[in-house]
């Protein structure tokens, strides 16, 4: 899975779960201040990412460091490289 595919799938999560238009999604966007998510949304973001990529990230401390959409792309890419995906989509 290449980075582009990861970005596409993460963006799908934001479109499907948080009703954010594709046009607003770029790596520099802050997930709180720019994309409007709050603490409750983060719980659902984790659940949606877990489903999308077949991973378990709820207890991964790196989740707490995420600030931008780009951080999520990088985090998911790192998980992939570590071989953490249960299903390689």
């Amino acid at each position, binding site marked *: 899975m290449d980075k582009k595919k990861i970005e596409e799938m993460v963006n799908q999560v934001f479109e499907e779960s*948080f009703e954010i238009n594709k046009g607003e999604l770029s790596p520099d966007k802050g997930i709180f201040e720019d994309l409007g998510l709050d603490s*409750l*949304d983060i719980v*659902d973001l984790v*659940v949606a990412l*877990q489903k999308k990529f077949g991973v378990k990230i709820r207890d991964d401390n790196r989740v707490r460091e995420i600030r931008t959409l780009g951080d999520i792309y990088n985090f998911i890419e790192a998980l992939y490289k570590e071989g953490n995906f249960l299903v390689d989509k």
Partner: protein
Amino acid sequence: MKRVVITGMGVVCPLGSNVEEYVRGLEDNKSAIQKMEKWKEYIGLNTLVAAPVEIKNEQSIPRKKRRSMGRMGVFAAQAAEEAVRDSNLSESVITSARTGCIIGSTMGGAEAMNDTFEIMLPEKDLSNLSSMNFFKCVSHTAAMNVSQCFGIKGYVMATSAACASALQAVGAAYGFIQSGKQDVILCGGAEELHAIVAGSFDILFATSTHFNDKPEKTPRPFDKNRDGLVCGEGSGILVLEEYEHARERNAKIYAEVVGYHTCGSGEHVSQSNKEAMVSCMTETLKSADMKSGDIDYINAHATATTHGDQQETEALKEMFGDKIPVSSLKGHIGHTLGASGSIELIATLKMMQRNKIYPTKNLDDIAEDCKGINHVMKSQDKEINSVLKNCFAFGGINASLICKKIF
């Protein structure tokens, strides 16, 4: 004691997504009952009929308000939106600490409960649970979501007494305004349809099972061939307001709430009890300082169960004889359970406004054990100045409310 009036109404129900559509459906004597093909997958579920609501324009509720709503939250928010618009109350009044919100339901969102268990139970794993499931499952999900949507800062409560929930909510709102604790309260009930809910009645043999291929022929309140209730869903919200508060702003007033009572039977958890019904209606009349002959129309609970309809008939016969017209709306919209009290009260108030009584749909042949009261079997014009609404619930809980026209 302060006087309390109704200044706004909103509804989402199987016959329509606003009051106008709903009343037009009743006027046309339509049935909203459908065959539930999907329910065939449930082993042991014998009723395959229900009255579902088609949700419209859900996206108009902002995502952050909507994310915590199950179906019943959406119904309640949309019904409340219509009621608030209808009342013409200003935003500053709605968001003041003198305005409350009391909405009842039998339980929290059935769909969210089902989803929670489906996610959690197979592996006993909670890690894929949405943060929103809790807010959809809680018993006060409708009250909570409506109060968040409208910025309510007064009393926020949820009554939970199965099929009497909505009428208890209206009754509680009446009491709080009467006593001067609040000036305005959005109140009523909400309920969502799910096999879990219908199944609860089904296993008690309380549902209709003989009309699965002729859904429009059931339920049949008071009829010889009645065979049980049909579950529905939706929400009915009323704006109750202190009389002088309403007069000062020159509000449109549908009616005055003049009497209310709720009581338990203390007898049986599921079987209706005539004595408790009589007691409830007697105390309601007393609280309104009225006699039985002062009532012009009774909107019955009558769900089309064998025992319930018979007991209600006996109670009505004893209290009102065969003079006062009685009808049930369950034949049109099914039993909307915790929402039925307010959804049906709204139709009852429209009947009073129009001086017209809508009949009991599917009442073709009055059962022997339901004779002796004045059944309305065809649409009827009649001057109506006062109405009595009944709700009789599982748990032996009864509620009755009287409204009068204001001249």
